[in-house]
């Protein structure tokens, strides 16, 4: 008994610093934010009396759209990041140890420069006179030429035709250049977010892939599977934990991001992060900003919790099914 208390004590002592840290700098601030939402605000930027005024203010018709847009863009960014990170991590894990270090280093290299500087650099890359814009325009024209014949597909078209650069000479394929710059658009936000968050997706997947036994892929091919089938059915489930962490590592910061939409999204891509920033820093309405933050956290955590609950339930159901099947198999096996 004495030994047990002793080990309990050491356990407590070792976890105490991190626990204290988390309580002080995570749990307490989160609770403060939550508490702020039940306060009004004072005109000079302070936190007012206890009230439900802030929550009532949240019934802004703009917010559902912005929340939905934020979730949609974060989802897009996450999907792209995972899709790009998977082959990337696979390739790195299959490299020789020397190259592995070099490539892993190259992926982390951008972190040595300031994030804001990098986003600003993208502004130059996406300048309306730049090559990326030209590529984007070419794509839009191609899309227009191809899809304008299909009923029900809408492509942004403006009556006022821009001079000269019309593909295939179709009169109706005039594209509104003012509205279709790549900068200040959703595409810019998604593109640069993918660029920014990609290393966060690659690293956890790579860590999992490094531990993956690649002879399993050989076994799968030996049993008749094509390369992609083996990748999908053996590799992806084998590194599933890495993918889950990558999703969290990308999705959560993407939901909260405001620098990228601020600098590259213009007025076309205002996300919840920008709104929170605006309420807190420009309007000095801390309770309102807190309420938005709480709302966003709920919008992420509630579905995540539901998903976790659903997976656990499904796993339990599967297990019951398997037990049943085994019992069945045993009984028929006995009869045969």
């Amino acid at each position, binding site marked *: 008994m004495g030994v047990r208390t002793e080990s309990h004590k050491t356990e407590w002592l070792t976890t105490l610093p991190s626990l204290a840290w988390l309580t002080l700098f995570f749990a307490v601030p989160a609770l403060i934010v939550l508490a702020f939402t039940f306060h009004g605000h004072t005109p000079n930027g302070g936190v007012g009396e206890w009230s439900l005024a802030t929550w009532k203010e949240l019934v802004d018709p703009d917010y559902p759209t912005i929340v939905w847009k934020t979730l949609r863009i974060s989802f897009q960014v996450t999907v792209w990041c995972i899709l790009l990170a998977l082959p990337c991590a696979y390739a790195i894990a299959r490299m020789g140890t020397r190259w592995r270090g070099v490539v892993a280093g190259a992926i982390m290299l951008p972190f040595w420069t300031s994030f804001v500087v990098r986003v600003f650099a993208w502004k130059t890359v996406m300048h309306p006179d730049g090559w990326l814009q030209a590529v984007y325009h070419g794509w839009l024209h191609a899309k227009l030429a191809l899809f304008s014949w299909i009923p029900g597909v809408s492509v942004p078209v403006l009556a006022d035709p821009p001079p000269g650069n019309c593909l295939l000479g179709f009169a109706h394929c005039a594209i509104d250049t003012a509205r279709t710059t790549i900068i200040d658009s959703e595409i810019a936000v998604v593109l640069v977010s993918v660029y920014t968050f990609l290393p966060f997706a690659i690293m956890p997947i790579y860590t999992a892939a490094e531990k993956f*036994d690649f*002879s*399993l892929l*050989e*076994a*799968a*091919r*030996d*049993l*008749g*599977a*094509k390369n992609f*089938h083996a990748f999908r059915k*053996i590799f992806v*489930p*084998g590194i*599933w934990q890495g993918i889950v962490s990558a999703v969290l590592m990308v999705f959560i910061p993407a939901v909260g991001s405001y620098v990228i939409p601020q600098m590259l999204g213009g007025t076309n891509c205002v996300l919840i992060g920008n709104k929170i920033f605006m309420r807190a820093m420009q309007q000095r309405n801390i309770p309102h900003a807190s309420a938005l933050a709480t709302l966003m956290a709920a919008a992420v955590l509630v579905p995540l919790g539901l998903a976790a609950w659903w997976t656990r339930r499904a796993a339990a159901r599967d297990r019951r099914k*398997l*037990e049943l*099947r*085994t019992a069945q*198999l*045993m009984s*028929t*096996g006995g009869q*045969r």
Partner: protein
Amino acid sequence: MAFLEFQDISKQYGSVKAVDHVSLEVKQGEFFSLLGPSGCGKTTLLRMLGGFERPTEGRIFLEGKDITDLPPNQRRVHTVFQNYALFPTMTIWDNIAFSLKVAKRPKKETEEKVDAILEMIQLGEHAWKYPNQLSGGQKQRVAIARALVDRPQVLLLDEPLAALDLKLRQHMLIELDTIHDQVGITFIYVTHDQGEAMSLSDRIAVLNHGRVEQLDIPAKIYEAPATRFVASFIGDTNFFAGEIAAVRGDYCEIRSEGFPAIQAYNDKALAAGQRVDLSVRPEKIRVTKTAPAAAKGPGLNVVKATVQDIVYQGVYTKYWLKAGARRISVLEPHSRFLLDQETITWNDDVFVWWHPDDGYMVEVK
């Protein structure tokens, strides 16, 4: 044309020749072993058959079809890997069903086949477990079942018993043999363990330095080794290096340094002056305290020796004797009640003898 044929296969890795102009023919339904020390090229040959390596030279034919350049998923050749390579994220049932699902077989057929093979390997009750919940021997059986369930043309086994402990290995040997008899599929078995190869195989190819040293039935490999390497790799043997001094009818006389003339059966009709290695297996040599009675014909080879070491094993006793400067190992089986017999002990002066027919000459080139 043979069922499976390696035609003049070579494989070069940089400056290393892993496989050096190997030609082999395997019959349908045969249990064929590739036996040799590590680095002899046996695994490379197997991987070329599986489709994981391309030969630098030569072609491989399966039922008359050139499969040399086919990827692994397009040959009906499955491998039982040394580490089993069971898919850890799938149940045993799904592991076994993998090849059938990939081939998009009807669901009912898949279920029947998987259930049937599970019953054959007696793991029905473990069907819904995951590989890490099974013991080594069970994993081994699942790996075999997974590779056999869609009835491949050839089953490749890459040192499948290497990871098991001795007792389980002996058990699995019998099981493998039974499975081979049941399914009638051609098995190609790679091993460095001569015991496994001898007990399982219809024929064995002994490999060394990427070449086939001998290809024959186990008994011939053991009794009539083609080269000095085969004689020493398969079981224990005593070598007497020397030169043929005289030929007398079917027998010849070998002069070996520090030894009286040795009589040996001259099966290859070698001429006098030919340098040979005479291999005499320990169990073919007798040890007695008294000289044996003279035999007819070429007579016996009799040498005086001193006992250096004795290891009693119950079934037999192993002796190491010193004859002149030479050490001779002898394995004396006990077919009679041992305690009634006069025993030989350390430092005894004894007679060591064997019949000229029981030595086997290997030419020295």
